[in-house]
């Protein structure tokens, strides 16, 4: 289904991201969703169906309905690893584009800090096969392979952390507002070699919400809806570490999802003004540049080092600060990216505003690079 200009975002909200020991999932979801309602200037009763993305902080549609008392309508929980949020948004867009509903809600949330767990814990459920796979370990294995293949070292990762933390200082809702130096990044304690503490995004609590409408209703609700130009989703092997021949220098799920989104939107990467990409780890952002087609394979490290991914550069990547600085409450992230795209396209992003932004991309990546979801949005 080509989504181009058939659905639009008419309201967006986002809770403060961070370490919210004193706040519950309910608080965060209500903050984000009521902000979205206020943004769209509509009442909750207008919502005809809803999708909620959460990886492990709730089960079923009730995980959203109970917080908002959004009862008696279809509510579906979506889980697709770290891409749960954007897949919830995608499902909402598809349902509206199919003509089943006119006004729906997509919410993402995650409450990671209640568990005390470091990171997300282990993937998989088999007692011994794949035992020990965690998010940092899997992306670290990609980093070591990338270094070997392209003859670079750990130092190429630092510019990603520096850029995203800098952008985060201009994001009031971000988990962190602090600059980091190359020295800090490179000398930080190792988590999974070669990735150190500042190569990893934090574990964050947060929620985000967007309201999606049909073309006709969107124009009635506000004069400046954010148009969905295309969305792609691709699922590849969830066990790339046992897939013979898998190169570990990029993620086909991103390439496939991006191509689908570009095709629907009728654009190429050159048309993008900014991107919100899934920088769960610094290496991931470098691989994303290449997989999204911003540069050639093996050139991603140079792309960021040369400042081409900075605000004011060729394509501003993660003006929000990204997962690295804005934080990564798993299910919330994909919806938070749509929120950020909307702020940029409404030119309401304050100090981090990408000048004259007209078209942006959001990229969510789940599991060991297995689930790729890419959305292209525009303001005209």
């Amino acid at each position, binding site marked *: 289904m080509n989504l181009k200009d058939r659905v639009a975002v008419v309201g967006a909200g986002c809770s403060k991201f961070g370490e919210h020991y004193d706040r519950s999932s309910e608080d965060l979801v209500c903050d984000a969703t009521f902000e979205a309602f206020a943004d769209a200037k509509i009442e909750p009763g207008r919502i005809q169906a809803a999708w909620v993305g959460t990886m492990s902080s709730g089960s079923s549609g009730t995980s959203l309905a109970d917080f908002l008392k959004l009862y008696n309508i279809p509510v579906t929980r979506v889980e697709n690893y770290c891409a749960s949020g954007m897949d919830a948004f995608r499902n909402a867009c598809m349902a509206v584009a199919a003509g089943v509903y006119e006004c729906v809600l997509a919410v993402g949330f995650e409450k990671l800090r209640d568990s005390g767990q470091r*990171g997300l814990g282990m993937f998989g459920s088999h*007692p011994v096969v794949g035992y020990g*796979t965690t998010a940092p370990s899997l992306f670290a294995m990609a980093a070591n392979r990338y270094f070997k293949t392209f003859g670079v070292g750990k130092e190429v990762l630092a510019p990603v952390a520096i850029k995203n933390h800098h952008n985060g200082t201009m994001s009031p809702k971000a988990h962190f507002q602090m600059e980091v130096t190359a020295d800090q990044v490179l000398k930080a304690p190792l988590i999974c070699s070669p990735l150190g503490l500042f190569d990893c995004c934090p574990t964050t609590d947060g929620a985000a919400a967007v309201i999606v409408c049909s073309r006709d209703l969107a124009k009635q609700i506000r004069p400046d809806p954010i148009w969905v130009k295309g969305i792609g989703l691709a699922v590849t092997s969830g066990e790339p570490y046992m897939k*013979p021949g898998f190169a570990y220098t990029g993620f086909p799920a991103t390439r496939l999802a991006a191509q689908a989104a570009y095709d629907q939107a009728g654009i190429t990467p050159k048309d993008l003004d900014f991107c919100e990409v899934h920088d769960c780890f610094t290496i991931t952002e470098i691989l994303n540049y290449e997989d999204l087609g911003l540069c050639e394979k093996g050139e991603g490290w140079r792309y960021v080092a040369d400042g081409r991914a900075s605000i004011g550069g060729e394509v501003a990547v993660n003006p929000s600060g990204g997962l690295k600085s804005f934080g990564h409450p798993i299910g919330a992230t994909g919806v938070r990216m749509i929120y950020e795209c909307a702020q940029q396209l409404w030119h309401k992003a304050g100090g981090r505003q990408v000048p004259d932004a007209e078209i942006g991309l959001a990229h969510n990546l789940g599991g060991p690079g297995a689930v790729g979801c890419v959305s292209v949005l525009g303001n005209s």
Partner: protein
Amino acid sequence: MAGIQAAAGYVPRYRLPREVIAKEWGQPSAGGEKAVANHDEDSLTMALNAALALRGSAAPPDAVFFASTTSPWAEKQGAPTIAAVLDLPSAVRTVDFGDTLRAGTSAVLAALDAVAGGAASVLVAAGDTRLGEPDSPAEQSFGDAGAALLIGGGPGAAEVVATHSVADELVGTWRTRDQEFPRAFPGAFEAKFGYARALGEAIKGVLTKAKVAPQQLATVILPASSPRAPQGIAKALGLDPKTQLQDSFWTTVGDTGAAQPLLMLAAALERAKAGDLVLVCGYGDGADAILLRATGNAPAAAETVSKQIEVKRTLPSYGRFARFRKLVKKESGAGDVSSPVVLWRDRKELLPLYGGKCPKCGTVQFPKHRVCIECGHGGGLTDQKLTRSGKLFTFTNDFLFESPDPPVTHAVVDLDGGGRIYVQLTDCDAERVEIDMPLQLTFRKLHEGGGFHNYFWKARPAQ
């Protein structure tokens, strides 16, 4: 006449200098060092890895005997794990021998009886990880190792000339069900009235049966709880300790319990010449004596005992050793879970390590999927046994992973002959891990989820 078809020893990589133990407790050092099982090793994995190193008979043995005073299980056999990893047919007899340091030689005698009774061959695998009480001479003395012998109808590496056993009721060294550490009655009581007397009687018995004089023996294998222990017997028999006594490896490996005589035999057979008479003895609640005549044709094991003694990693501290052996208390844990159901259902993949091969595109893959991971062929894959060697494709040293020996190295390994597997590396220095390094698979304990031992393969640098 039945004989030893092949022999192999297994010495774990880690060493703890006795000086480190001595310094910890303010005691004198007994000198040398002891081999220490890695934290992911136990008596069963060491016995098993010795069995995997055996070369020789192609036909599967009719029985598998596992000998140890320290089986990881109190109720449940270890031998079926060995049989499963070796991919033996289900019609195999499995028996565990335990409860005495003589368990290793007694298992060999039982294997010889089985062959005499019609079995084509029997695998005997021994391993011990005896825990000496902290701040005791035993802690310095005990070392960890495994060994395996294939007993069969032909001579192979050595034929059996005669055997003799004696039983002896004497409380010299013991461990009750409630005790964690073996105890020995203080003084020379057991040395004189247990060890020397029982072994002397068994040796005299076997030499009389074979009409062989002590001077004709090329090598005598006497269990050694200390370097001094065998000297009295050697003297009484008129042996030349320098030329006739097999090194017990006490100084380099330690007293390896039930595995010790078998480990010494594996080393002796590596250099034995045709016609050499080798006497191997076990002691504990009596004694076993087995007289062998070497053929000089011992099939080389994957790694010789002497090579394994050379290749080592020294533990940096007593604390690390104490953590390996769970002598220090840890209350927070990894929280591993498991499922005996899944382990049973996948046993053919997990133990003998079968993957699948796509009949359409030929891709070898692990686990064995229903649908080919490469071409999507949905008609099922054929069984493909994976090789146990390969090359490191990529890795990470994980500092978050709960381990007694951090960091844990996770690795993607491309196996020789096809198939890609995700395993942990073990017995290696994380700083020296590099892409493309050659690796060998080794069978280890992964965790204790579900309250039991969860075994799987890991990889270690190839030697």
